[in-house]
Each structure stands twice: as C-alpha cells, then as structure tokens.
C-alpha cells in the first residue's frame, strides 16, 4: 500500500526553474509532441501489464493444468487432455500470441465458478463498482480539497489541528475496517441505535432496479459504502492539499498580487489555491491504486456485487480466469486514469509541456 509520495522530491524539475530562456512561444507542435509522449508512455505501461499478466498466470503458475482442470483431472490421460485443450505444451511464444489475440477482445476464458465467459461476468459487475468508486471519488476530492484549503489558511489554529489529526487518523485506518465499524453501528443495530441501513448488497430482493423505488433503494444501499470510501479517500486529498497550499503561500508572486490591490480572498482563490491544485493532481495520480484497493475491500465488506467482490470471491477456488480478467481491468483502468491526470496536469501547468 503506497502512502503519499512527495513527487517534488524526485522530480526536481517540477520545482520552478529560473533558467533564463529566451525562447519564442513553444507553440502547438511542442505541446502535441508532449501529448504524444505521454500517450506512448501509457501504451508502453499497458503492454507491460499485458506481459506481466501472462507471466503471472502461465509462468509462475507451475502447474496450470491442475488449476485449469480444477483438480478434476486425476489420471494422466485426463491431465494430457487438459494440456492439449489449452495448448499448455505449446512453445511459450505460441501461447503468448494466442493470449495476445484473446486479450484484444478481452477474452479471458470461462469462469470456474460460474462456467460463464469472464468478460460477461465483468460487464455485469461493472456498474456497481463504477457507481461506488465514482461517487466516492467525486465527493472525496471536493470535500478533501476544501478541508485541506481551509486548514492551510488557518494554519496553527483549531480547525487545522482538528482536521489534520482526524485526516491522519483516517489515513492510518484500513478502509474496510472503517466500513466494518460503520456497518456494526449503523446497519446491524447497536445498543440504542436502530438499524439505519441495509445489511449489505446493492438492492433489496424483489425490487425492480430501474423503477424510482428501485433507484432510491439502490442509493440507500450505497450510502454506507460510499461514506466509508469517501472518508478513506478524502484523508489523502486533504493532507496533500494542505501541504501543497502551505508551500504555495510562501511564494513571491502572491506578494505581487497583494501589491496590485487584490483582497486576501482573491489572492487566495485566484492565485494561491489554484496553483496549489497542480501538485495535488500529480500526487493523487500516483496513488490511484489506492482507489482500486478500496473498491475491492469495501465491496467485500458490504457485499456489493461489483468487480471487487467478484475478485475476492474468485480467490477462494481460485478462479484463475476471473482473477486474470479483473487484474487486467483494474490495472488498465489505473493506467488510463493516470494518463488522464497527467494530461490534465499538462493542460493546467504549461511549464511541463516542453
């Protein structure tokens, strides 16, 4: 689990450079080349993930015929039949090519548990995960940045102390444990507190998901998981925003802004906070894996039928094709999200587009 990484520690070029450069405006071509480099970089990472996926499941898995046969192949002939069926005796390069062909169509084979194509299973479970993660991310970004900003502007005072203590504590907590506690207190009824929320799953049996009642029902089921994830995610955003804004507040150009007659509020909003958001975008993008981990564990605790629960259920057998599929989907999403935030950063901070 990666904790916050101070990116300016290992990218000294990101701290402003005062090298006097009399270059004419870089123009579109330099920006497009930078854009191309970023996309190419992400494509390279995706290729790496594809290779790792193969490596993990064919090479590390010493006896793929056993796992693929789910322990049912007892006699040597049955084992041989499995080997033939999946081409496990073929030379490795040939297996790799077959694997590549399948990956393009996201074909990971059939699940052991459900005897259905993995692709279909993943598609079914996609929406709950997206709803859960998407909502939590949006809330946590907004609330986290807001808390961090106010804490920085009131550095040393009560709000700062309280918020920093709480966010650091939240940050040190396994997010699924927070979910367990919330579940315990608010869903199963504890002492005087009645059962306020459902005990897991996405919907109550027998309710049509697409009716208005169904929508409300789903939302009600998502409240606790979303609250859990939001609290877990916002801790990091708040801490990073606070520290980025404190860094920014010492900069000289804020003095210039004040001298021009801007009120404190405008100096904050228009200059300091906006510029402090830049490192936040980068730092957060480096820790996107955390969002995925949260999805997996919180879905498990609340039995939300998403990709995360699919993964943890698959651990039991183990359902290798499903694991392979979800690993790829999770990793690829993080790569894409990383690319998006890199591009966003480039759009916001023209200095990196060289």
């Amino acid at each position, binding site marked *: *689990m990666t904790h916050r990484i101070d990116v300016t520690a*290992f990218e000294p070029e990101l701290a402003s450079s005062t090298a006097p450069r009399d270059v004419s405006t870089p123009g579109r071509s330099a920006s497009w080349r930078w854009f191309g480099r970023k996309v190419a970089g992400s494509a390279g990472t995706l290729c790496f993930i594809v290779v790792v996926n193969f490596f993990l499941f064919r090479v590390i898995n010493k006896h793929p015929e056993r796992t693929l046969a789910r322990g049912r192949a007892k006699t040597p002939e049955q084992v041989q039949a499995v080997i033939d069926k999946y081409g496990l005796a073929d030379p490795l390069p040939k297996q790799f090519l077959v694997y590549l062909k399948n990956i393009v169509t996201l074909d990971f084979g059939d699940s052991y548990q459900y005897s259905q194509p993995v692709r279909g299973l993943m598609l079914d479970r996609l929406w709950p995960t997206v709803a859960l993660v998407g909502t939590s991310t949006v809330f946590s970004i907004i609330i986290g940045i807001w808390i961090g900003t106010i804490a920085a502007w009131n550095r040393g005072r009560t709000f700062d102390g309280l918020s920093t203590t709480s966010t*650091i504590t939240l940050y040190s907590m396994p997010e699924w444990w927070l979910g*367990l506690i919330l579940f315990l207190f608010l*869903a199963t009824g504890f002492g005087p507190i009645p059962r306020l929320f459902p005990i897991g799953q996405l919907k109550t049996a027998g309710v049509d998901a697409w009716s208005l009642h169904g929508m409300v029902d789903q939302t009600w089921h998502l409240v606790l998981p979303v609250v859990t994830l939001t609290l877990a995610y916002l801790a990091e955003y708040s801490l990073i925003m606070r520290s980025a804004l404190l860094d920014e507040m010492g900069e000289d150009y804020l003095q210039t802004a004040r001298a021009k007659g801007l009120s404190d509020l405008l100096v904050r909003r228009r200059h300091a906070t906006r510029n402090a958001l830049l490192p936040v975008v980068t730092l957060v993008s480096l820790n996107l894996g*955390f969002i995925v981990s949260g999805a997996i564990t919180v879905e498990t605790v609340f039995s939300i039928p998403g990709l995360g629960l699919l993964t943890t259920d698959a651990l039991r057998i183990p359902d290798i094709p499903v694991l392979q599929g979800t690993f790829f989907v999770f990793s690829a999403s993080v790569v894409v999200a990383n690319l998006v935030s890199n591009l966003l950063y480039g759009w916001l901070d023209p200095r990196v587009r060289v």
Partner: protein
Amino acid sequence: MSARQVAWRRRKDSAGRTWKEFRRHRTGVLGMVVLVVFALVAILAPLLVDSEGLSRTKATGLPLESPSSSYWLGTDEYGRSVLTLLIYGARVSLLVGLFATLISMVLGTLIGIASGFWRGWVGAALFRLTEWFLVIPFLPLALVLATLLGGSLFTIGFVIGVTSWPGTALLIRSQTLSIIGRPYMERARVLGAGDWHQMTRHILPNVMPMVFANTTLTVAGAILSETTLSFLGFGDPTRVSWGTMLDSAFTNGALTLGAWWFLFPPGICVVAVVLSFTLVGQSLEEIFNPRLRQRR
C-alpha cells in the same frame, strides 16, 4: 585517528544532532512512545498472557462471549480470550510488517541507486521498470501473487515487499541524482574511484537518512497491507495476527451478532501502530528534507 574513525565520529555526532532535533517534534515523539509500548507488549507477550490461550482445542470460554471480568475483551469463535489473541497478534503483525519492509527497502534502495547512477540504457530501463510497477495497483497484484504462491505469513511478507519497492526506488533515485552532481563526487571519480566504491562509500551513506525516514513510512504501509491481505484470507491459519482476527470476526458473523469486542480492538491497534509510524516518519522527513522544514 584513522579516516574511518573520523567518519564514524562524524556519523555519531550527526545522529546525536538528529535525535535532539527529533525530540522537538512532539507528534514524532508521541508516535515513538506508542511504538515502544507496542514493541514491548509484543516482545514480552509470554510474560503478559499465557500462550496456552492461543490453543483452539483447549479454549475455556464460550464462543463469542461479550467482555466480562474473566475475559476482558470477550472471546473469539473458539472461546479463546480476545485479549490474548490481540497481544500475540501484535508479534505477527509487527514482524510481517518489518520483514516486508526489509525486502522493500533493500530492493528499492538497490534499484534506486542503480537507476540514478547508471545514466545509460541500464539506468533508463530500471527507471522505466520502476515507473511501470508504480502504476500497477497494489492489491490486485498482491492478491494474484498471494494466490499463486499460497497463503502464509512468509508469502504475505514477500508479496508486500516485492510490490511496494517502487516508491522508495523513485525517492532514492532522485536523491542519487542530486548527489552525483556534487563536486566531491567528481573529485572521487577523478581520483579513480570505481562505480562500486562511489555507490557504497559516497552515495549510500548520504542517502541513508532519507532511506531511514522512508522506511518508517513503509512499515506503516506494510502493516496496513498485511492486515488487508490477512483479512482477505491469506493469513496463516495456525497463527494469529490482527488481520486474521478481523478475518475470523467477519467470516463468523461477528457483525450480525454485534460482537464489537472482536471487531474493535484489532483495528484500533492497527490504527495506533500505523499512525505512530506515520508520525515518526513525517517528523524524520521534516528533519532530513530541509525544504519541508519551513512548513511546520
């Protein structure tokens, strides 16, 4: 005094200064105190509670009893005292965390120094590798590796170590890059220092303070990861850790039974330990990274 003695005396002095500086960070000191308490509890476990209490067959309590005078934190699903489990669990959680951190730091430092030092295609390749591993999300990779290698404490520690080195590697790489540019490195090269000599005698000692600060933060993450992996079922069934306790609690319906005494304490211990490591690590970071100092 020989040159080596001079070097050691200098290091001792700077260590003394660091300690003095650290003492002024109240949060860091608080974290350190808490860690010392936990470490003592873990080490002195047999003196505090009877190890017989870990045995499933000899358990004397009723399953999932709420706290009483005889079982201060109640019992688990086998009737064992949760307090006993908690104390012995500290050993496993801390040990696995430290083991994973050791792997992670060694790998991270080696690769970090190497990718910073060798600027040619070796360094570039290592850097790319680090970036790739950094992007892959931790939990899916760890789950896959743990599944394939089988669940045991050693596996968990190994898996965490092997997946968490990129953060350290990047940090060490940037430190290495800044050290390489310094005049005394050029002087060492001119005097004929080989690669190995430069890396071990010059770069490594200068990188150690940051490594030290980073280690503390890595342990925090490792303990969290171990707890998560154990919770998801990869823990050693014969051993108790805070994560396996929570796994047992969850799978045995502690939620529906409202067995808060089983769910709360392990989590609180994890939070306390991770928080303490984080506070200590942040204080150390502030001390060793002068840029962060003005921001207190």
